[in-house]
């Protein structure tokens, strides 16, 4: 197998989100929208047409008081690696408008190539992909606050979390100007990671033993969403609560999370 096919010594960016720490405040969602020029409408009551690259789900253990327990689960794009880069969405896009980068592990979206067939949305089990049902319209004056490093998207194309790839590009540029061979962990952090007041989100290179995520993903309480489907996502979650870990995937009655790899 070629090095580029198994990431070899290349980077593999990912996240570890501690669900026991997350308070569900939504700061990550707000930061993501501001950083990535995510459009919104005046009336956002129809959530099935909203665009939320980062979405916080509220989970419940379904038990009555006093055993009721809830958990907030932030869900960015899982940047699935699938099998050798064949993530669910990348392999189905007919126009190669979405790509799995073997150098970073980031699943990118090429807005100007997407023609809006939405096959990738049908393929994604996480609902992490969003269609621009409307043209983006910014409240008067707000266009001045848009992030100049991120292109706004037009009606009729799909968009999703990019792991703030513009920040990676900026970090690489800075490193080059400063004569550094590589970027450091703190040089590239996503907006949601930095905005989280509880510090629930940790971001870094899953392949790099010097990065925090490298150790965190190996915690016994770590799990990934829908791991059994073979999507091979790069978002890891931590929770000490078994019902939360069990909510991360589908299990038959006689199965439990502990039995799964």
């Amino acid at each position, binding site marked *: 197998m070629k090095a580029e096919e198994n990431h070899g010594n290349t980077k593999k960016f990912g996240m570890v989100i501690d669900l026991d720490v997350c308070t569900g405040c939504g700061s990550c969602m707000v930061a993501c929208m501001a950083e990535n020029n995510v459009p919104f409408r005046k009336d956002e009551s129809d959530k099935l047409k909203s665009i939320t690259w980062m979405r916080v789900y509220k989970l419940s253990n379904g038990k009555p008081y006093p055993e009721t327990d809830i958990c907030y689960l932030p869900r960015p794009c899982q940047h699935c690696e699938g099998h050798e880069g064949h993530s669910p969405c990348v392999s*189905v896009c007919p126009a*190669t408008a979405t790509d799995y980068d073997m150098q970073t592990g980031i699943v990118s979206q090429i807005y100007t190539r997407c023609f*809006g067939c939405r096959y990738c949305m049908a*393929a994604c089990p996480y609902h992490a992909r969003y269609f621009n*049902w*409307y043209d983006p319209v910014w409240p008067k004056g707000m266009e001045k606050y848009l992030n100049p490093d991120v292109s706004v998207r037009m009606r*009729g194309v799909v968009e999703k979390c990019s792991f703030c790839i513009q920040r990676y590009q900026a970090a690489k540029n800075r490193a080059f100007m400063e004569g550094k061979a590589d970027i450091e962990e703190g040089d590239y952090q996503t907006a949601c990671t930095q905005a989280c007041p509880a510090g629930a989100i940790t971001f870094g290179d899953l392949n790099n033993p010097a990065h925090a995520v490298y150790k965190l993903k190996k915690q016994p309480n770590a799990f990934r969403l*829908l791991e059994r489907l073979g999507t091979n996502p790069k978002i890891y979650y931590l929770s000490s609560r078994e019902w939360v870990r069990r909510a*991360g995937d589908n299990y*038959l009655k006689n199965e439990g999370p502990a039995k799964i790899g």
Partner: protein
Amino acid sequence: MDSAFIPNGVRRCAPGKFLVVLAVAGAVLLWGVYAMLLCWFKGLNQTNMNNNYGFALWIWADLAVIALGGGAFFTGFLRYIIGKDELKNIVNYAVLIGFICYSSALLILAIDIGQPLRGWFIFWHANVHSMLTEVAFCLSCYFGVLTIEYIPLILENRGIDRVPFLHHLGHNMHDIMAVFAATGAFLSFFHQGSLGGVAGVLFGRPFSYREGFFIWPWTFFLFTWSAAAYGPCFTLLITKITEAVTGKKLVKDNVVELLAKISGWMMVTYIIAKIVDTLYWANVTAPSKGLTLMDFYSHNAFYGVWILILEIVIGGIIPAAILITDKGRKSPAARTTAFVLAVIGVCVNRWVMVLQVMAAPVMTFDKWALYYPSWQEVATTILPVAYGVILIAISYRYLPIFPQEPELNPID
């Protein structure tokens, strides 16, 4: 008024009556065109699709009309490749219905994409791993083949046939039609299959995901098989409706019964394969993802086991059983019932492989998502039906679609 263009030896209704039919179908067509323009100019916010339902009514309509249009390639295959000569009496109509179905599918696809002006990207930036790429290439090529198959029929119009060049062109095209029939059958095996592959490769969606052979999921083969099995039933149903509307017998019973018999036996083999596929999926594939069969048919207001029964038993086993028996085939009522049930069966199959896939939750904390189409989606889906009625009406009036019509309906 237009008698010089009407085929020899047949009688047609008065021009006024014909124009009324065209006007009614044309009004429906214009309604659909208006909705289509709304979608193109205002965007897909005119639909009720959403981020849970990226695929909806239109993709179902696409898959359904292509399956129903499968009668064209399979009848052509039987006529030109296998040598079932009797089918020459219905192959023209099968080609016309196929042409309508495939042109409709392409039109719906053009409306369905978010950036219609970028539709050519699917060819230019083609991703060889995507089933949709294969669909686009094969569908376009096969539509070209159907056009080539339809042209000689147009050239047989009495007025056009008077032009020597066009007369000889039509004659020579007829001579080489076996080549196009073979090409069409080859292309159809692939695009019908890749349409099945569209759903079957979705390994993130346990409801539709299937294992398979090499790069092809089992749905690849099931879709081709079902189109070959059920497509002729649609051709025969539309023939029956045309006979009812015109008040004439247009195709002899032995031709209908032959195609019905082949279709019936194809259905038998298909439905066995479908049942095996369903059992394997329910007992092996889905449990390996932590899901049971009933997870896909419960906890929602619409999708229950009834839809599985409707597809496999009512829309599969029953019509197959009718069509493989001599008694069933020879009874016009039973035969027509079988055609209707078969059309329902294949349409339900395409429905579940598109809409139920979108509806069923995958994440444990997700919910079933039901959807109803907007009027713009309905109108643009009915548009091809109106277009089909118009094209059939014009073709029937001016072209010798049914070679047996003069013999079955002699003019005194």
